[in-house]
């Protein structure tokens, strides 16, 4: 089979790219290993809601039309939303088509799937940033009698064996899972490393409204001091609860979750916990306050004061005087460890040497410069801070589809001339 461009992945990124390719009259197919929005269907826990408000899902040619713009979508609603998008833009999606190999050919790319192979001029990798759980090295040393699962495998408290639970990681997933398990009556210990603390609501508005309005999400990857660091930041510590309550380490502390340092090792029947808890919390508080300062400055210049509540600051993260550094596994009663330590993409099908020493695809704002005609979309801070948000992928798709279109035109010029000569 032949087409001009193949998009690998039928989530929001692949679909937004499809919309832009159609608008630019570039023939393409979208290959999806499962159903549309597959990760949202199969790799999320039951109670999860999107952490962005409903209004903040503006995709090219599609947006939220319902009556609860400030609410947070459940997973079924999220799947429905993305499926609705695919339908409304008539995206040429081939579902249940897994890519097994992507390789270069003399005149473009070959995409091999479990149901046939495609030859194309350009390829867009939109297979997502969160295909696999990223486990720390200490995961290999967990004693056999402890159950372990990842945040991708976690569904609900009923699935967890009786006993105390250690949740490792205090970003969006870890804090929400810790909250749910503690409220379900489990004794939860949360191992906290570097994290990004944010209030849900600030001065009467959702924090993401502020970040959107003040242009924080539009920050360009070329203007960031340290793009490697920006791309590796942990996810925002936010939850989309229907009552908009704030989820942070203080709220977890207040319901009885025990906060400890990063899980640094397991040795002689003991968890070894880092003594850096105080510092990671201080860093997170400082960074949150820096963002709130920036928001206040922006508000002073751009809003009339009665539009929003007055500025205020949140209580510093409370850390006990001497957090434990060692925890005896047996006496702690911990029977289960849940790894909420982030994700990484799965490129096991990628047979083009464009990956760096850590396995990530090298790119310049989504343009895979080492392999002309290849593009990447839907990765953290790909082109702007909002690149991984449903709301942010549209702008990236516009920019990259424009680049892709220019590249195709450059490729075709000599080819057409050749064809012309043959015909005459």
């Amino acid at each position, binding site marked *: 089979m032949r087409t001009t461009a193949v998009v690998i992945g039928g989530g929001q990124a692949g679909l937004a790219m499809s919309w832009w390719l159609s608008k630019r009259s570039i023939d393409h197919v979208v290959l999806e290993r499962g159903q549309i929005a597959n990760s949202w269907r199969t790799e999320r826990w039951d109670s999860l809601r999107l952490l962005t408000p409903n209004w903040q899902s503006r995709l090219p040619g599609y947006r939220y039309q319902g009556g609860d713009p400030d609410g947070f979508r459940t997973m079924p609603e999220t799947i429905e939303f993305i499926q609705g998008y695919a339908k409304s833009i008539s995206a040429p999606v081939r579902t249940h088509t897994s890519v097994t190999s992507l390789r270069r050919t003399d005149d473009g790319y070959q995409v091999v799937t479990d149901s046939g192979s495609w030859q194309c001029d350009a390829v867009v990798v939109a297979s997502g940033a969160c295909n696999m759980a990223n486990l720390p090295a200490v995961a290999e040393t967990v004693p056999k009698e402890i159950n372990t699962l990842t945040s991708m495998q976690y569904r609900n408290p009923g699935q967890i064996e009786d006993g105390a639970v250690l949740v490792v990681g205090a970003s969006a997933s870890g804090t929400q899972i810790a909250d749910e398990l503690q409220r379900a009556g489990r004794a939860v210990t949360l191992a906290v490393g*570097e994290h990004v603390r944010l209030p849900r609501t600030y001065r009467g508005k959702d924090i993401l409204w502020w970040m959107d309005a003040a242009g924080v999400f539009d920050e360009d990857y070329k203007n960031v001091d340290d793009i*490697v660091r920006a791309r590796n930041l942990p996810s925002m510590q936010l939850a989309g609860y229907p009552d908009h309550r704030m989820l942070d380490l203080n709220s977890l502390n207040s319901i009885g979750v025990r906060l400890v*340092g*990063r899980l*640094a*090792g397991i*040795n002689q029947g003991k968890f*070894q916990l*880092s*003594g*850096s808890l105080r*510092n990671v919390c*201080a*860093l997170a508080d*400082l*960074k949150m*306050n*820096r963002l709130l*300062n920036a928001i206040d400055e922006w508000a002073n210049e751009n809003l009339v004061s009665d539009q929003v509540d007055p500025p205020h600051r949140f209580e510093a993260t409370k850390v006990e005087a*001497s957090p434990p550094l060692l925890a005896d596994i047996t006496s702690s009663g911990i029977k289960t460890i849940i790894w909420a330590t982030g994700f990484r993409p799965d490129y096991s099908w990628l047979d083009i040497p464009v990956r760096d*020493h850590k396995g990530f695809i090298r790119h310049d704002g989504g343009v895979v410069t080492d392999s002309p005609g290849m593009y990447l979309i839907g990765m953290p801070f790909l082109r702007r801070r909002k690149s991984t948000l449903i709301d942010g992928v549209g702008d990236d798709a516009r920019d990259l589809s424009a680049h892709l279109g220019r590249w195709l035109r450059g490729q075709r010029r000599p080819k057409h001339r050749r064809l012309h000569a043959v015909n005459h």
Partner: protein
Amino acid sequence: MTTATTEHPVDNGVNVEALLSAREALSASPDAAKFKWRASVKWINGTHSRSTVGGFYGLGEEQKHKTTFSFDADHPEIFASEDHGATPVELVLAGLASCLTAGVAAVAQNRNIQLRSVSATLEGGMDVRGILGADSDVRNGFDGIKVTYKIDADASRDDIEALVAQSQKRSAVYDIITNPTNVTVEVE
């Protein structure tokens, strides 16, 4: 972030350009980034010993300090010793102090903050029943370390706190102290 807007460029004596280009170069060639730091020690008498550092390995080859440095360590007279030098645990505090302070200077330079003075006091609490073997439930090492900085700089309090926090995040000795390390001790 607040940046100094003085007419004179910020100078804390740290060559940040060189550090940043080293980071760039070393992330592309991870083998050159593998360093080995070394120390050797000679027992002198009693609890008195002298450690020296001179050579180390890095950037793919053997390297040398400009001179060999030596550090005497001993224990105070109340431990029935002769007090020829700092206690080893005080050397650990000194190592942490120097590491964090170097970090403060480097981060300040990178963030365009002019430092005028930086000082810190460090205190490590210890129940010596641990090392004396008097109570097996008592840990040998510090039960906690408190570091208190005094910093005078062209920056807000928040920015100074961020400097200190970031220097902990990038500090080798802070990591060595806060996280476990496998230690292998053999006899030749």
